[in-house]
């Protein structure tokens, strides 16, 4: 009976784990009071795409207490993309928690074909320059090919995902990958059961010392003759972080005094 109880308990744990895995993310309530988070001044999205993305951005915003904002512009005044972003933040005062609050912004400058990602407050902490660089390198290709909707979607999803990891840890660490975890657990299960099954027939319990006559056995004679030493040298590669279409550039502070992280590149 005890064993069955334990099995049942294990089953319940497994059920919850799997349930957790399979629960669709977009299950959260779609509130009627949707905020405007997509500012498509360059008209890159259709009406439908816009509505869809805005709903999605609102859903993810609620989960991370951070507004995910997308700003596209034809940049008629030919301003720097960083300046556009900072101005937008100062004047529009976005933020999930309060005006000038937690915000992650993707700015697409269609004139100079530049993209800039910025994180304010909570997003500055959780989406530092390095993480924004990674997000940018994942989405730049979509913009180059004109798949704007997909690129925006990826930005929101990846930012959402990365914000689930504590600052300072590598969000792409394979240990955090659920697929890897499931596969590792499957391999472990197979290995343990396989070993158990293999051992049911009785194990070999003799080794080389069982029949060896220790008094007369051993190394009788040995020689280790040094011949020569060979040396090879190899230049240590310095890891270069610049990626995408000539990116780089970090965060800064807006003229309104709001500090932010950032990643800039062309597409």
């Amino acid at each position, binding site marked *: 009976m005890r064993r069955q109880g334990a099995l049942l308990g*294990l*089953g319940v*744990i*497994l059920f919850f*784990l799997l349930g*957790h*895995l399979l629960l669709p993310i977009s299950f959260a309530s779609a509130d009627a009071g949707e905020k405007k988070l997509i500012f498509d001044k360059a008209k890159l999205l259709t009406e439908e795409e816009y509505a869809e993305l805005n709903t999605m951005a609102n859903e993810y915003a609620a989960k991370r207490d951070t507004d995910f904002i997308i700003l596209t512009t034809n940049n008629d005044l030919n301003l720097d993309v960083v300046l556009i972003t900072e101005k937008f933040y100062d004047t529009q005062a976005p933020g999930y928690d309060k005006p000038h609050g937690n915000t992650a912004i993707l700015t697409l400058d269609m004139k100079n074909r530049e993209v800039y990602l910025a994180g304010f407050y909570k997003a500055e902490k959780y989406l530092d320059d390095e993480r924004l660089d990674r997000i940018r390198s994942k989405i730049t290709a979509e913009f180059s090919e004109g798949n704007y909707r997909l690129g925006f979607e990826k930005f929101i999803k990846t930012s959402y995902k990365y914000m*689930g*990891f*504590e600052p*300072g*840890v590598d*969000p792409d*660490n394979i*240990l*955090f990958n659920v697929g890897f*975890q*499931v596969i*590792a*657990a*499957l391999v*472990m*299960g*197979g290995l*343990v*059961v396989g070993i*158990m*099954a293999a051992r*049911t*027939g*009785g*194990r*070999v319990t*003799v*080794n080389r010392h*069982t*029949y*060896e*006559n220790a008094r*007369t*056995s*051993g*190394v*009788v*004679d*040995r*020689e*280790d*003759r*040094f*011949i*020569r*030493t*060979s*040396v*090879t*040298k*190899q*230049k*240590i590669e310095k890891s270069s972080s610049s990626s995408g279409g000539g990116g780089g550039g970090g965060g800064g502070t807006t003229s309104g005094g709001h500090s932010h992280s950032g990643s800039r590149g062309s597409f």
Partner: protein
Amino acid sequence: MNVIDYKCPSCGSGMVFDSDTGTLTCRSCGRQDNIEQTSDPLGQRTASANEVHEYHCTSCGAVIVAEAETAATTCSFCGSAVVLGDRLSGKLAPGLVIPFSISKEKATQAFKKWCRNGLLTPNKFMEANRIKGVTGVYVPFWLYELHNKVDVQGHATKVRTYTRGDYRYTETDHYDIYRRLQLDYVGVPVDASERLNDQLMDRLEPFPYNQLKSFKTPYLAGYVAEKYSYTDEELLPRAKNKIRDYIEESISASVKGYTSTHLTNKQIDTRVKNTDYCLIPVWLFQYNFNRKIYTFAMNGPTCKVVGKPPLSKVKISAWFAGVFGVTLLALELISWSMGGGFL
């Protein structure tokens, strides 16, 4: 006199070997005879093997039903313990024997205990109430004493790496190595019975050689014994094969301390110093489960059991699910503690 039986000098009943006391014991009057001090009725005989094809029980006269390999059995009519003398003399005379030291009841108990310990065996199997037959068999083994002279030559390297400035340096020291080893193996057992599975017998090892006694036929009284089917020369390759891995391990153990070793020349000279023909006690269990018969062997003195039991699919699945769940949970906890979030 090809058939030997053991009549009690006091009452005339049949005597058998008693594993608890190690004596030849009369079940009727309780007389116990020390085997090592009595003379073996086998004595000096010249009858050669396989000459006789029919044996008669000296107690009741019935024909003894015995296979060609059988050297000791019980008469199927009157139950007397009989030893077929011509199958244990001349070339077929064993030099050593490990006598049975635990009784059939104790062996069965030990077997039942083993059945209960299976983690993957079906619950029904663990009850162990369908044991069809328990037979104490003296299995013929050759014990080899093999002396090996091993000469190996090769090339080894020691590698160090360090960084200086912008460069990583790899420094490799090359050595010529030579080793001569003397490896003497004593009592390497190889089962000489045709009937029994070699792998099963290999897994039964080790046998307690401190219980070895010089052979006398009364040790067989009441048990089944077999004569060898293969000579020591025929089985020498198997013996050499058995020590091959030990030799390899000893060689690699003698060249420790290097980053890499590559042996270019290896000479192993194996000499057979001695072979002993030995009878080793094994309990054989026939277990009827789900209309299939499973055979298990138990090392007589040590009670180690070998043989493939049936596996329960339910238990395999349960263990798999359990290990899977626990591992997944552990990985989640690790990822969570590293700041990676829970799922």
